[in-house]
């Protein structure tokens, strides 16, 4: 593979990914004005400033960014060098595959830099609307976060469709949390049915800092999230709670590598995925505990549910531990609906279809309920109810 080419399914870390739609897309960035998007954004979350990007480019007319915002737009050239350095030295050395991030770097031209100062608080909504057809190019959104010491940043990131039939997205996020910083990051991927939505996320977490990611993947034809978190300082913490539903002939693939590179670091990882109809799902959760990461504590719970005859799912925990003084728990299951639970609900008079929907709902809610921002959780639940599971009266019930 060259520096700027797509990976292939022959690579173990990419074997579950449906790379074809992205490969078919024109590799150049979408030219501004290449499409006429239909922008329908959810109500602005209370207390948040809003940034909107259409086909990877900032759209001021839809944005309500604050005058004193800690976020600002940079040209790629201004950010690119620092970025490449981070990837190559800090993170790239760990053997993580950044080929898509490099493609983003080679073709994108805007970077949103979010840099709350030491002790600052900020709430930012990022809405990436993709609409241009793949033949018009690929969207390359790029976000860098430099969270100051003790700052508390809340980011809600949405990837949404805007009318195009088969848009292609290749997003990149680079996050650096300094000591005692906290980042609550909720991401929702709900692109149009034919979209391919790829992203690479790296996070560097310093001492006592906490990175909490909630990721819900629902849309698109093919998606892949590549996540790499380095717990670089003592008592750094990562929470990754992810939910994905693959219906129709969707393919969702998540690869998450979390590296414990300092003592007393903690990870909580939970994935719940439902594959239905001919949907395919994969979650690879790799956990590395380095020699010096004494008293590291990691917990992985990966579960997938199959509800269609043509559905496929894989949940793979991987542990690499180089020290004895560590607490690491992991569990992974792939299966059908629990027959005992189903019978219990039937015995209470629920229709079979309702009981099945209820159990699927409960399963995915394990992860979705971790989205603590109530209006966002409601938004996600409504999407799930409208597109996948129809649990009569359950939305907003948790």
């Amino acid at each position: 593979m060259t520096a700027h080419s797509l990976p292939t399914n022959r690579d173990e870390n990419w074997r579950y990914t449906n790379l074809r739609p992205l490969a078919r897309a024109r590799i150049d960035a979408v030219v501004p004005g290449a499409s006429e998007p239909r922008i329908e954004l959810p109500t602005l979350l209370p207390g948040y400033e809003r940034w909107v990007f259409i086909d990877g480019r900032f759209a001021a007319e839809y944005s309500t960014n604050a005058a004193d915002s800690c976020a600002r737009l940079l040209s790629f050239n201004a950010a690119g060098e620092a970025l490449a350095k981070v990837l190559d030295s800090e993170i790239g050395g760990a053997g993580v595959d950044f080929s898509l991030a490099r493609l983003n770097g080679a073709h994108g031209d805007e970077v949103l830099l979010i840099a709350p100062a030491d002790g600052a608080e900020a709430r930012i909504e990022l809405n990436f609307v993709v609409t241009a057809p793949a033949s018009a190019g690929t969207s390359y959104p790029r976000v860098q976060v430099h969270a100051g010491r003790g700052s508390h940043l809340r980011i809600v990131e949405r990837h949404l469709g805007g009318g195009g039939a088969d848009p292609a997205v290749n997003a990149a996020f680079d996050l650096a949390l300094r000591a005692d910083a906290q980042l609550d990051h909720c991401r929702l991927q709900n692109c149009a049915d034919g979209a391919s939505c790829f992203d690479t996320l790296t996070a560097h977490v310093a001492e006592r800092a906490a990175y909490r990611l909630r990721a819900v993947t629902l849309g698109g034809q093919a998606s892949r999230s590549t996540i790499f978190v380095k717990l670089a300082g003592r008592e750094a913490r990562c929470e990754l709670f992810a939910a994905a539903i693959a219906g129709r002939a969707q393919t969702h693939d998540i690869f998450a590598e979390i590296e414990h590179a300092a003592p007393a670091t903690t990870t909580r990882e939970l994935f719940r995925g439902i594959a239905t109809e001919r949907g395919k799902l994969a979650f690879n959760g790799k956990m590395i505990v380095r020699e010096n990461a004494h008293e590291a504590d990691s917990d992985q719970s990966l579960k997938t549910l199959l509800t269609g005859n043509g559905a496929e799912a894989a949940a793979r925990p991987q542990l690499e531990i180089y020290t004895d003084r560590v607490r690491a728990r992991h569990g992974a299951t792939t299966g059908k609906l629990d027959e005992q639970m189903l019978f219990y609900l039937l015995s209470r008079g629920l229709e079979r279809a309702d009981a099945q929907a209820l159990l699927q709902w409960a399963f995915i809610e394990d992860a979705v309920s971790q989205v603590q921002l109530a209006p966002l959780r409601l938004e996600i639940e409504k999407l799930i109810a409208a597109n996948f599971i129809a649990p009569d009266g359950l939305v907003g019930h948790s």
Partner: protein
Amino acid sequence: MNLLKIENLTASVGGKKVIQGLSLAIDAGEVHAIMGPNGSGKSTLSYVLAGRPGYEITGGSVQFEGRDLLSLAPEERARAGLFLGFQYPVEIPGVNNVYLLKAAVNARRKAMGLPEVDAYEFLQMVRGKMKLMQMDESFLSRGVNEGFSGGEKKRNEILQMLVLEPRLAVLDETDSGLDIDALKVVARGVNSLRSADRGVLLITHYQRLLDHVVPDFVHVLARGRIAKSGDKSLALELEQRGYDWVLEVA
């Protein structure tokens, strides 16, 4: 017409004959207790009545208010007014108790051609029943049986029964694992449901529940059939003499 009429029922699980020619009739207004040693088929009987998959009916019949119970799906049986109180209620994280209660009530109402229950009135009704069962209101928003103690699960079964107001309640070892105070609460719940138009089938291992819910009839189940029937005094006799003498006679 009997509320429940079981005639010469035979059933097997995994190829093993467990129920072997069982006959039993329960009329409205009656409380029957079925006792018996481990492995006698008590729980199997309850599952067969509720329609659990994996239980093969090989002979006989079961009529529920004159309908062929065995031809109905589990959910149809429930909506017809049959309730099974589970020996081991399952935990269903993510489905909260109040949702399940409401869904169950509405499923039954729908089957009866009635509109959905009014949310406010429903909650008031449930709160009243919870008070009777000495359950904290926080139970409502918790996942079904999630993290409940054994006693809490059993109380929750009885609460569901009280809310659903079945025509026939089959309670499978609802008393097992309860301390004496919890047993009294559960018994109070069961007694509150007793009425001229309902029946209760108590499946139990021990006599002590029957001190609090006094049955009209006591049956001993042995080797998959009713080996002996009597009144409340039979339970006391079993308590004193064990099951062996019944098995010898059977």
